[in-house]
């Protein structure tokens, strides 16, 4: 792309001629110089995308078909052995099942809560701005720091949750939130929902605010109840935002890694190993 650009310049108009023609009367040379400038401005993006995205993508395609331990370098093709290795691994299918289960739970809980939050903060009551900030605040934390934070929070020995439950007399022994497969899963879901609900709330809020007021008023005039308004106006008109959140949420959860790596390290008994 960069190599091509000067070629065009010389064929269109010589560099010497170009200087006076900077503000040309005719449209054609101007178009050309704008094309070149456009290419120039896009060049850094093109370089970045090529070097750090396309090249690695090709490389990963080749690696997936070869015997290529990271330290030893390329040892030649062995397709499709790597793929059968992956599917033969005893961890693979449980990992797929677990990832799908996790994605399903997170998506339902997260979007439901985000919708509730968006409805709560969209009204112009005093304090709504404050609540919006509070709900979004965990989103500013990194997933890794959030995972570390919850790792302490869930700790059976020093974490406050376990002690709180004991004091309330709900449990007798310290609770191990990450101890059984089910509780580890649910604890992680709670962490993810806590961290991301504010972000999805913001997306849905943008959608909510784009619904014209007149529609609500018309519905109220016609005597629709709150539930009816929500079902037949808010939800359908919110569909684009909901679709976007759904897409982001599902792809995000399918690629989950940080939270499990830090929080559970795949345990107990590899029950929380994800595909990625």
């Amino acid at each position: 792309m960069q190599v091509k650009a000067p070629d065009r310049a010389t064929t269109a108009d010589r560099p010497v001629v170009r200087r006076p023609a900077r503000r040309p009367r005719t449209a054609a040379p101007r178009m050309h110089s704008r094309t070149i400038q456009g290419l120039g401005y896009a060049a850094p993006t093109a370089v970045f995308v090529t070097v750090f995205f396309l090249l690695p993508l090709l490389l990963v395609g080749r690696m997936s078909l070869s015997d290529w331990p990271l330290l030893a370098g390329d040892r030649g093709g062995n397709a499709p052995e790597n793929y059968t290795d992956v599917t033969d691994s005893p961890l693979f299918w449980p990992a797929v099942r677990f990832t799908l289960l996790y994605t399903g739970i997170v998506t339902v809980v997260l979007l439901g809560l985000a919708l509730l939050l968006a409805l709560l903060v969209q009204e112009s009551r005093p304090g709504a701005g404050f609540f919006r900030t509070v709900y979004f605040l965990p989103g500013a934390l990194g997933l890794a720091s959030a995972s570390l934070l919850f790792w302490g929070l869930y700790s059976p020995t020093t974490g406050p949750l376990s002690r709180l439950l004991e004091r309330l007399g709900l449990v007798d022994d310290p609770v191990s939130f990450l101890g059984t497969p089910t509780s580890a899963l649910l604890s992680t879901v709670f962490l993810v929902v806590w961290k991301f609900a504010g972000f999805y709330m913001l997306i849905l809020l943008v959608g909510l605010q784009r619904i014209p007021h007149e529609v609500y008023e018309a519905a109220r005039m016609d005597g629709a109840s709150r539930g009816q308004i929500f079902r037949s106006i808010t939800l359908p008109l919110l569909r684009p935002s909901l679709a976007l959140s759904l897409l982001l949420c599902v792809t995000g959860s399918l690629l989950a890694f940080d939270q499990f790596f830090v929080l559970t390290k795949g345990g107990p008994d590899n029950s929380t190993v994800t595909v990625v």
Partner: protein
Amino acid sequence: MLTRALGRTPYYVVAAGLAVIFLFPLLWNAWASVDGQPGTAQETGYGLGNYRTLLDYDAGLWRYLGNSTIVSALTVALTLGVSLLGGYAFARFDFPGKNLLFLLTLAILMVPYATLLIPLYVLLGRLHLQNSLLGLSLVLAMFQLPFATFMMRISFEAVPRELEESALVDGCGTAGALRRVLLPAVRPGLITVGLFAFLAAWNDFIAPLILISDSEKAPLPLAVANLRQQSMGAVDYGATEAGVVVLAVPCLLLFLLLQRHYVRGFMSGALKG
């Protein structure tokens, strides 16, 4: 008056209850990092013992903070520079391959993060950027490009064309028009992109986990994650909590400071799809 106040009560109970749930982990962590616990540097009473542990851990807290700062600053600068020019090109110019390049940039989002990191590790090795903060920043900036380019393109498209054209007629080149006229107009977009890039770079955990092998060069999240299991399997909760505080405070402050621009940048179009 009274009935209206009563009518609002359930709303505030629900909203405040949720607010407590959302704030509790943050507040608890801040408190726990100075509270005494057996098995940590702060055995009894309140104090900064955990922070002292953190200061002395391995290469030292300042080292890790420095690494994180360098990586974040480089990532933000690279992201802003590339996406500013790229957004301008996509919004205002026509050139061959424009749509293809834009699609490819967005396609970065669709490939699993961790999948790309392994080949990037090999690639950076060839460029002699393996195990270097610059290499890490380049990779992190690349992952920011889809959002940043999209955002900047929309910001530029929202600026009236006449503004730029009058500058061009007055004799500015396109670069001059960009610097003098358009740059102030797209500032909210730049702030959003910059904040996003900072949060991502400051907090990223997987990329340094794979790309950085030298603990001297680890940024803070990696260091804190390593720290919690240092001495013979004994877990130092206190120091971890202190680490989380050190990690979180800059993010929370920046977010609160720039919140207005950030939310506006968000609302003004990034998500109109």
